[in-house]
């Protein structure tokens, strides 16, 4: 998994001696730098965006760095990579959740102990199925059908949606989480 230290990107790409992600121009500069690094990923690779060294983040920066990055990643011309977010604190979430909700986006936050959480605009069904796949480590559609009460066709649609939103990925015929599972 490729690790991108967003704090380091902020200090070098935006040339600022601060640890806070504020203002749109700063956010845009940081996002462009991250996008350049993501272009080096191979098909199916996962990048971990590490916010551990970021102090606070305002709404404008959350929109520029997080939302626009996810939108670009979901675009047709996007490189086929995945992103997990690490080092996210409640202070970051305040802004991130607002912009994710605004755009109807979602992302995966990975914790230091290996645990993960889905953040953003997802339905209860999407969250439940994502958590089911995460708990198993990987699952084929049939496996999830066996342990859930969902209609198989609806289940397939939800799994495909989670895949297209890059909240899960494919490993052969199975759906798997983006990050390591302990």
């Amino acid at each position, binding site marked *: 998994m490729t690790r991108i230290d967003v704090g380091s990107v902020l200090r070098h790409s935006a040339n600022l001696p601060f640890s*806070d992600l504020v203002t749109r121009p700063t956010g845009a500069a940081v996002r462009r730098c991250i996008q350049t690094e993501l272009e080096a990923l191979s098909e199916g690779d996962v990048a971990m965006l590490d916010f551990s060294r970021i102090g*606070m983040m*305002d*709404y404008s920066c959350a929109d520029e760095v997080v*939302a626009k990055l996810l939108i670009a990643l979901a675009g047709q011309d996007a490189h086929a990579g995945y992103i997990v977010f690490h080092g996210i604190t409640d*202070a970051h979430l305040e802004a991130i959740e*607002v*912009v994710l909700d*605004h*755009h109807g986006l979602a992302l995966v936050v990975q914790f230091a102990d290996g645990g993960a959480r889905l953040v953003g605009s997802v339905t209860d069904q999407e969250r439940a199925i994502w958590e089911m796949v995460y708990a198993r480590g990987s699952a084929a559609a049939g496996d999830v059908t066996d342990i859930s009460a969902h209609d198989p066709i609806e289940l397939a649609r939800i799994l495909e949606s989670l895949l297209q939103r890059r909240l899960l990925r494919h490993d052969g015929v199975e759906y798997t989480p983006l990050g390591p599972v302990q």
Partner: protein
Amino acid sequence: MTAVIAVPASLDDLTFESVLEQLASHPADAKVIIDARHSTFATPYGLTALLTLAQTRDEKAEFLPPENPDTVSYWARAGFFRYAEELFDVRGHVPRPRSAGESDVLLEVTPVTKSDDVHGVVERIQERAASILLNNLHLESRATMGFAMTLSEACQNIVEHAGRGGWVMVQAYNYRRRLGGRYVVVIAVCDAGVGFRSSLESGQRRALSDRWDDAVALEAAVVNGVSRYGDPGRGQGLKGIRGYVHRWEGKFSVRSGTARIALIPSWEDDVPRRENLAYFPGAQLQIIIPEKVSVAA
């Protein structure tokens, strides 16, 4: 003939209107004297709005500082004269301000013209604001990050939309006008730029209705999140401010042109919308976050 504009004894967002009303009949190139000799109190809004007023005058206005030594000393500590001396012909002696950072003001009057200024403001205020919000306002720790975000977004309004520099100031004090002297933290961000109406017009974001004026433009931007930029991610800054202010039972007001709208908490009896005010260019924002008071069982 030089007009004398009297500054009220207590200068805040509402009493500042009397200054604008007196100025209304005097064009920008007319000679005026801003007489603050009898002022004894000024909020961050009052001080930053006075500097903004100076920016609107083609003919440099004279300024008579407060006579009360405590008042003039406070205005100096707040950094007001550091910029007033550039913008006004300040008459008489005013105290020399101490170096920035030694003041008892949470954030002295600070110019905001570019994105880097916002970084500086946020960096400077976080530690001191956290202490005030936790210890004096008794808010939860998550309020401190939201406060910095709110301040950042308010300042960015200048950088993104005003077209010229403005001012920010933050102070904590006992709010005597309401709340029975409860502690509040007040953010004031004022500029003399293009204002909300012109900003939206420049982005072809005028509402598709017959009525189009400062009040409608303010409502579109502040309440409905319309931005002059077509980017769908825009408009979230003011929305975020509204959310933060609502969560902590604060007050948020925005004045632009001839109108002012405000989100009014239960403890305040202000009106949500004022129209046909004396014209004042740019945008003037004020955010008040009050002390949290436990409800007795």
